[in-house]
């Protein structure tokens, strides 16, 4: 093989490597800058601040509820979109995409006008035992609004891949349509649904725009009077207004915790054969 041919073989890989490295650097270098600015001592100090953990607790609780609500409401919708034909299906799919498409400040404004104290929705929510003022439920509402679309879309994609022959074989073995859904459709779609749930969760945890708009509705006496029900993103934003180094430390701590969670899932996948990996090649 002459030099030109060798170069022709190598060049695409090298080029792809350089471009990939550039993107990875773009991902990682700002985080390094953040950690450097925060300093280990600052991160340590932030780790000792109970307000940080209260905000994190609130975020984890609200996002867990939001993921639960998204699964409860979003998976059936994903199923209907994937497996059934009905009038207005494309309109429904567009509606599902809306929260993903619109700027989150717009989403915040829309939600504000819908749930502000005094509106029928706010009164109904209070009556139903899920008050939206000074409570975690407004945070959950925002997280579901901005994140549930991902659960619907990922579920729809997964349900579309359900193998008809497996469903038919199960039915002929005695499975009712409900059995077949639980034993065939749901397990095959579980990995996709899980991906959707993770995206919903990540979207909810990282939300800030809609929270800032809604803050005066959720906390009428002032947005930052307490962190009991305010998510971590609002907590960090609050710190950013007061002390940049403390904000950087809190942000770095959050990144480190996210990395640790990510690593734990990776290790569990490698060692523990997580349920949604059953039957895949190599398990």
């Amino acid at each position, binding site marked *: 093989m002459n030099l030109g041919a060798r170069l022709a073989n190598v060049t695409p890989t090298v080029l792809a490597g350089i471009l990939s490295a550039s993107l990875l650097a773009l991902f990682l270098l700002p985080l390094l800058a953040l950690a450097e600015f925060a300093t280990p001592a600052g991160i340590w100090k932030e780790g000792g601040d109970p307000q940080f953990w209260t905000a994190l607790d609130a975020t984890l609780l609200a996002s867990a509820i939001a993921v639960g609500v998204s699964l409860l409401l979003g998976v059936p919708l994903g199923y209907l979109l994937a497996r059934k034909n009905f009038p207005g299906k494309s309109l429904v799919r567009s509606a599902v995409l809306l929260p993903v498409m619109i700027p989150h400040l717009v989403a915040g404004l829309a939600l504000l006008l819908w749930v502000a104290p005094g509106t029928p929705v706010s009164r109904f929510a209070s009556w139903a035992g899920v008050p939206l003022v000074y409570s975690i439920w407004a945070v959950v509402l925002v997280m579901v609004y901005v994140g549930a679309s991902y659960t619907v879309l990922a579920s729809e994609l997964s349900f579309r891949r359900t193998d008809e022959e497996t469903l038919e074989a199960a039915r*002929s*073995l*005695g499975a009712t349509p409900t059995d077949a859904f639980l034993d065939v459709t749901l397990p095959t779609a579980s990995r996709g649904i899980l991906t959707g749930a993770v995206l919903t969760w990540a979207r909810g945890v990282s939300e800030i725009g809609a929270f800032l708009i809604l803050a005066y509705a959720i906390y009428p006496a002032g947005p930052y009077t307490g962190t009991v029900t305010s998510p971590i993103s609002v907590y960090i934003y609050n710190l950013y207004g007061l002390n940049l180094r403390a904000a950087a430390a809190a942000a770095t701590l959050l990144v480190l915790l996210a990395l640790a969670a990510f690593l734990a899932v990776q290790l569990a996948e490698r060692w523990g054969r997580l349920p949604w990996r059953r039957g*895949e090649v190599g398990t």
Partner: protein
Amino acid sequence: MEAGGGGNLTGLVLTGVEVQQNGFHLGPVSLAVAPGSVGALIGPNGAGKTTLLRVIAGFGPRPAGELALDGERLNDLPPERRGIGWVPAGLGLLAHRRVEENVRYGLQLRGDPDARAKASSWILRLGLERVAREYPTRLSTGERQRTAIARALAVEPRLLLLDEPTSALDANAREELIRTLRELLAAESIPMLLVAHDAVTAVSLADRVHLLHGGRSRFDGPLAELEDRPVDRFAARFLGYENVLSAEELAAAPSGPLALRLRAASGPGGLAAPAHALIVRPSGPGVEGKLLARRARGRTVLVEIDGLRLLGQAERGSSLPPVGSGVVVEVREEELRGIPGEVGTVADAS
């Protein structure tokens, strides 16, 4: 697969079954498969074989006509209440369950207290004990096929439907599966209806064949009868006739002595001639032609006569000249079969 309309017959009985789906019309199909016997559905792609099996299993649109199993009308029963073992072409194994769990699945659905023991017994019978703890993705095609059959039989169905059970298998695995199915058939007195992708499977397993073409029934009867009188060109090719000529091809051939004799023997759908109907020798009485190719093993040769390229057989004991030389061909007219399918209505299966 004798067609019958009596509700008291045991086994599977289809009477005038018709179904319309996405512009495709299947039927009317009438056939019967008695307990302990095997029926084979044959036909070209798109003939409606899989559609018919799915209709019997309870999937797809509701059919017109009468579908009965052991005297019970099936038409209005959902698939889970038909008592039919359905092994689709893709097998439909539960990918997230191990082989043992797949075989046990139907028994579990029925709440069978002996599910585990019964599943183990079927795993042993189908020779799957080595892979019982594996997931389906780790199995060979033959093992997956046997898992699907074990799973279908474990629930003691009243009928077993198999869609192209041997099509994805190599010759050895196919032989093994055919042997297994024959053993099961001898032991389990249930009717079996399968889509046969090849003549070997049909010959080895089926008592009767049902030929579908373009959604229409073309033949129902013993395979030997179809072999003797192929009803269309697909049937002739499926059954291994080496030379299958359409009436148009024969009409277009130059009018030499061979073409004239073949035309005389052909039917509206053309002509089927096995290689041994054309005996090829270096010289002597017969029609003159040219040797185009010969196989390294066996006696099959390719000759060209009157513009037609035909497979014949070298005469036993004679030594043929080199390829490209002249030869003579003796036609055994008693081996030629006219194809009755009308021109224009029998779709070419090639």
